[in-house]
């Protein structure tokens, strides 16, 4: 870089600057006149002001330098937004309340449906039942009742029990005395559709299952009423003994009717309601 000697010594007259390089050089050559000082002061002020403005915008945030009507506008917007959001909160809370109470209702309905399923299951024989009741044993040790009369005897006994308020009934056979429960295959849950058929193999066909004497009814119901209904004159006990069989009636505070039957879907009947 060549420094123009004229500016320092003042001896040789400075050549007139021409062209781009000379103009740049004239920028770099120190000259101090009043107007130069003014230019410098102005540019310093510009730099100062720009930095101050940038800093104030960064530090205080855009709201600090906003003008009044802008602030009012922003405040209005915020107020409107607040109102909208409050309305939304209200409607959402309303929806939440509705959903909550609705689920409460459906839960109650579900619980009620479960309860009804259990109750109906006792009637239909699809769930086990237990409670106070009695055990009625009908045996034919000498074979005097005969296989022709056995279904009648059992049906009489069952109807007597039903009339006395039996709520769940299970028929077993053959059973050893005092044995509870009976072996798995030799027991049938007695429901509304239960049938008793004579069978040539020396027993009774109960709902397609062969049961043999001695038979035992497990009954859940009011024990005293049930027992009384069995021992009335001309009742089940009299009837069996008149035919040559033997009966024992044993009340119990806790009878377990554990035999189940599968739930059969009706083929034709549909709920009408």
């Amino acid at each position, binding site marked *: 870089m060549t420094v123009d000697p004229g500016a320092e010594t003042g001896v040789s007259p400075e050549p007139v600057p021409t062209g781009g390089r000379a103009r740049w050089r004239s920028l770099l050559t120190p000259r101090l006149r009043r107007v130069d000082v003014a*230019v410098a002061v102005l540019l310093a002020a510009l*730099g100062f002001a*720009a930095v101050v403005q940038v800093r104030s915008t960064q530090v205080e945030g855009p709201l*600090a*330098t906003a*003008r009044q009507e802008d602030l009012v506008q922003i405040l209005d917007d915020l107020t409107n937004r607040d109102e909208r959001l409050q309305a939304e909160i209200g409607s959402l809370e309303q929806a939440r309340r509705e959903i909550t109470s609705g689920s409460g209702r459906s839960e109650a309905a579900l619980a009620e449906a479960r309860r009804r399923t259990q109750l109906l299951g006792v009637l239909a024989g699809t769930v086990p039942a237990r409670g106070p009741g009695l055990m009625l044993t009908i045996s034919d040790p000498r074979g005097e009742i005969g296989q022709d009369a056995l279904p009648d005897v059992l049906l009489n006994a069952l109807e007597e029990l039903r009339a006395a308020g039996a709520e769940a009934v299970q028929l077993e056979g053959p059973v050893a005395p005092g044995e509870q429960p009976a072996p798995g295959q030799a027991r049938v849950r007695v429901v509304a559709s239960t049938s008793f058929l004579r069978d040539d193999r020396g027993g009774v066909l109960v709902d397609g299952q062969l049961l043999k004497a001695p038979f035992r009814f497990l009954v859940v119901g009011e024990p005293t009423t049930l027992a009384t209904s069995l021992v009335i004159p001309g009742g089940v006990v009299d009837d069996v003994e008149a035919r040559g069989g033997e009966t024992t009636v044993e009340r119990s505070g806790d009878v377990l009717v554990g035999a189940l039957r599968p739930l059969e879907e009706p083929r034709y009947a549909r709920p009408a309601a």
Partner: protein
Amino acid sequence: MIPAVALVLGVVLGLALEPTVPAALQPYLPIAVVAALDAVFGAIRAQLDGIFDDRVFVVSFVSNVLVAALVVFLGDQLGVGGQLSTGVVVVLGIRIFSNAAAIRRRVFHA
């Protein structure tokens, strides 16, 4: 050279002193800075064109800043300060862009 040094000196001073802008000046300072930038770009362009004049620069700088501030002040008084300051910024921005384009053509010949 001196102007560049002065500019840097101003920046350093602003960083060092960390002054807060007085509330009365807050609406005008950004506009004034943009107006001054316009004057500076015009000066650079004139320098490259070889028609730069110190006095013209000083006068145009000061008058730019004052006129811009005056316009914003008037706008504030009339209730249209926001719109007028936007307008001033737009006009000055256009001028800065055209000056920058001229400078680019001179420097890069493109």
